[in-house]
């Protein structure tokens, strides 16, 4: 099994397409960093215009933690596309090249074969997230320094102390890994049904865009189905940045407002991953491999 995973990882990282995602993340974050370094104060003034009408905010708002949050908010919506580029190509790519049938002539079970491919795509997803964490968190901490984190939510604002933030980011990236693995498993499932990569990649993105729009729309008729859409739960990482307050309205350092909601979202995503993977294994075991 380990050998199979190594072979699959070798194949993933040999292809130039794989590095498009890493380059894209690097360029996007570099652009954001450049823009905010150059004219970040105007961006902050624009974001704060509602709150500064009654309050004066003093301190370094645009610090590394803040820039990381802004970056994640923008990028974690688009990273699924980069993951789909590889995950949705895992089986269909082999079928397209005509190597799938050949590979299955080797003495390995179909289950092991497909699990190795899935694990390899998960490793790719995790490496992409680690790259994102390095660029969005650590590089921003170096470039912009660290300070308290001031977050604007739709109904209220949250102020987190500098020493109460880093652990939240670690958990947030862990959660994002779960969310992105869900995307990878969906793309992986779709890759079983096509003999070229374009179809599964576009199908994965279409599902994500469609579900994300449904999750965003605040129309009562859609509210009932929202909890069942995995896209609703993919932004659960943000819950790590909401803090509890006591009866005197004092924020409790080290607390999370809705840990239950995080667990629920994590469970929904985990069930999706298991569901997509199980479906992939079952379909692949019964699939008539003709290419």
């Amino acid at each position, binding site marked *: 099994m380990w050998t199979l995973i190594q072979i699959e990882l070798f194949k993933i990282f040999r292809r130039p397409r794989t590095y498009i995602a890493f380059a894209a993340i690097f360029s996007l974050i570099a652009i954001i960093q450049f823009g905010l370094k150059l004219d970040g104060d105007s961006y902050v003034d624009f974001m704060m215009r509602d709150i500064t009408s009654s309050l004066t905010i003093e301190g370094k708002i645009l610090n590394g933690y803040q820039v990381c949050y802004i970056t994640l908010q923008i990028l974690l919506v688009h990273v699924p596309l980069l993951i789909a580029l590889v995950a949705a190509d895992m089986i269909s790519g082999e079928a397209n090249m005509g190597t799938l049938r050949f590979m299955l002539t080797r003495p390995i079970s179909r289950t092991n074969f497909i699990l190795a491919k899935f694990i390899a795509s998960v490793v790719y997803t995790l490496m992409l997230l680690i790259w994102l964490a390095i660029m969005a968190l650590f590089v921003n901490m170096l470039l912009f320094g660290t300070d308290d984190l001031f977050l604007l939510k739709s*109904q209220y604002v949250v102020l987190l102390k500098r020493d109460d933030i880093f652990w939240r980011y670690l958990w947030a990236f862990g959660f994002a890994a779960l969310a992105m693995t869900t995307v990878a498993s969906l793309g992986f499932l779709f890759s079983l049904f096509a003999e070229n990569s374009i179809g599964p990649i576009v199908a994965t993105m279409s599902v994500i865009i469609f579900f994300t729009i449904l999750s965003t729309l605040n129309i009562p008729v859609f509210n009932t189905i929202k909890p069942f859409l995995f896209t609703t739960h993919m932004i659960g990482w943000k819950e790590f940045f909401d803090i509890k307050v006591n009866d005197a309205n004092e924020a409790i350092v080290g607390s999370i407002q809705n840990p239950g909601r995080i667990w629920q979202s994590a469970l929904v995503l985990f069930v999706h991953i298991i569901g997509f993977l199980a479906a992939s294994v079952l379909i692949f075991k019964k699939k008539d491999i003709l290419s």
Partner: protein
Amino acid sequence: MKKYLLILVASFFWMDSDGQDMTALVMKVKAKLDLVKDYEAEGKMKTDVSFIKAPIGKVHVYFKKPNLFKLKKDGGISLLPKGGVTVNMNTVFATTDFVALAAGEALVGGVNTKVVKLLPSNENNDIVLTTMYIDEANLLVMKMVTTTKENGTYEIQMSYGQFAKYGLPDKVIFSFNTKDYKLPKGITLEFEDEAKPLTEAQKIKNKKGRVEITYNSYAVNKGLNDAVFK
């Protein structure tokens, strides 16, 4: 007729002497505060605004005569009422050009106080009116309601301890009005359903904000560099 005229003249004299008394009382309080040329205080600040979730933070407060004032948080970001915390006793008393009118008596924190309306004579002053609740026996301002041109009305309530001899409070509660806060979910990327609408009582309560500063220590008249206030 003579009798009525006598009563009228007597009441004028009584009102006039009462007005003088209030100016005298205010000047006594000012004289007490004038003992403080500068101070550096250390304390904890709590921001209590319905739409803000913020932890308690350590603060340093600096004051230097005549009206230099600075509040600094020990690192991090601080949220203060707009133009507000700089409105304090020292800045109100920075001017001697005012009219002090008696407005009765009131009980503040269990202490009997004289209510004094302070009107600045200079019409360019940002402060329009200050109502002071003065503990006459100890020459301490227990409460102050200040209306400004730019930033509305603030209420400042003070309690005193070991630095009462300088007229410096141990605790200051600063109340002010806040505006509604709401951002579209499309901007904040939140997918969860709308929160339940607030009742009218909750809405009124939510429009009041408070900043509480509890001082642990004061360093009075030790000399402060002007650079601190920049």
